[in-house]
């Protein structure tokens, strides 16, 4: 049996079930959020938990509104967003470039390998005091922190991808007499595109860790500053409000990378 669309009844039923399933998942997602927020609000209102310690959705909303009317909300968001985005871009670009150099020269790679391993294992927060001394207590220090947190990860991620280039495809290009530069641009860069996207995803997280960590150590503004300040003066509403914004921004940035992935990766897999 065929209808106007050219699909069989069975296929239409399949599509309908699929649609229903997607709707169900979305309903449950939103429902779960509403339930959690409702319970939170209720437990604060009814005194099951001390709102001084756990805050509540309505208090968070009020805090956000207050910050907005004071005119500092977007100042703090902007500060953190700028540090994070710039740090992210710098660590990605530098990381990609350094990984390319390491791929190009096996000698350089082998010489620097132990340094990379140690730098990767080193907790970057240990460099905090040093960064303050070198870069002062301004945005520069936070930016530096953001870059070093993401940089080593980016280098190692891309280097692994570059070195994992299919041996037979390399052989094919070599049998055609390809130069190293041709191998790089015709094979190594395009075949590592999926790894590049996954590196971006990892580094979005790294950039947020770096910038918030940086703001914990030195800052006069930003979401990390609000969180630390809120904790120090026991303004849990402020702390929670900043955390909520942070979660929304991190999700937004991740979503942008996913969008980029959709644009770039179409036919990269066999």
């Amino acid at each position, binding site marked *: 049996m065929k209808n106007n669309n050219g699909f069989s009844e069975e296929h239409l039923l399949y599509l309908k079930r699929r649609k229903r399933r997607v709707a169900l998942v979305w309903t449950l997602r939103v429902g779960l959020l509403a339930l959690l927020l409702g319970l939170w609000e209720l437990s604060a209102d009814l005194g099951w938990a001390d709102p001084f310690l756990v805050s509540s959705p309505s208090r968070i909303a009020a805090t956000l509104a207050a910050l907005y009317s004071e005119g500092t909300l977007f100042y703090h968001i902007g500060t953190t967003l700028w540090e994070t985005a710039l740090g992210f871009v710098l660590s990605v670009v530098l990381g990609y470039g350094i990984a390319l150099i390491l791929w190009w020269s096996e000698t350089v790679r082998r010489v620097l390998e132990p340094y990379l391993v140690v730098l990767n294992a080193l907790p970057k927060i240990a460099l905090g005091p040093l960064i303050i001394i070198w870069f002062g207590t301004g945005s520069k220090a936070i930016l530096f922190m953001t870059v070093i947190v993401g940089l080593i990860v980016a280098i190692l991620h891309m280097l692994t991808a570059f070195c994992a280039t299919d041996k037979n495809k390399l052989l094919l290009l070599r049998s*055609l*007499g390809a130069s190293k530069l041709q191998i790089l641009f015709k094979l190594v860069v395009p075949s590592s595109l999926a790894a590049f996207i996954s590196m971006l995803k990892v580094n979005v997280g790294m950039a947020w860790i770096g910038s918030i960590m940086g703001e914990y150590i030195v800052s006069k503004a930003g979401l990390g500053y609000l969180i630390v300040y809120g904790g120090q003066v026991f303004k849990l509403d402020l702390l929670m409000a900043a955390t909520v914004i942070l979660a929304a921004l991190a999700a937004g940035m991740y979503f942008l990378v996913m969008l980029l992935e959709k644009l770039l990766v179409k036919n990269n897999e066999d």
Partner: protein
Amino acid sequence: MKNEILGFEDVAYTYHTRRGETVAAEGLTFSVREGEFVAVIGPSGCGKTTLLSLAAGLIEPSGGRVVRRGTCGYMLQKDELFPWRTIEKNIALPLEIKRQNTPKNRERARGLAEKYGLGDFLQSYPSQLSGGMRQRAALIRTLATDPDILLLDEPFSALDYQTRLNVCGDVSAIIRSEGKTALLITHDISEAVSLADRILVLSARPARVTHTHTMDFGEKNPLKRREMQQFSAWFELLWRELNG
């Protein structure tokens, strides 16, 4: 030898690893004539791929010399099509690498693709093609720069049996009709018997040529050869020589 297009003269090759050195070939002598289809068979691990790498000039012999009177095209076990390129772009890859990507050469490559049944797939991506079609595209890519000698490294071994027989027939027909010289390396005796004009049998490592046979079918089509009387006789002889 007359019309020799590829010659190995007392070639030796040793490769080195940290654990020691391995003599992959020694006293390897044979030649391939223009337009000839030569198959090389040998026990596994006898250095067949080393032989092709030497023929292609990817590695230099440790001793003796390799004479090449023409350009080589290399075809590998898997098609190695680049998944992010369309079939048309894949076929043009050798032209880009060799900086011969002129409209005339592109037109020639496209003509080959159309002639051998890939015309409708030029804008498709490799993942949209069947294994047999992909291997055919790989052959057209190898032919794009119009090489004089085709080096085939077990080019059918990654295909399932049915596809394998068909692609084997296709590839043979294309190579014959383009008048190319081919050197096929395989561990599959029946493939060698069905395709080649001449078969060289290699010894275990270090590789040397132990036997040479000229096929006497009077028939170039591999599927028809498989049905002929001599086929099983050749198969048994080569089987004994490989194991003996």
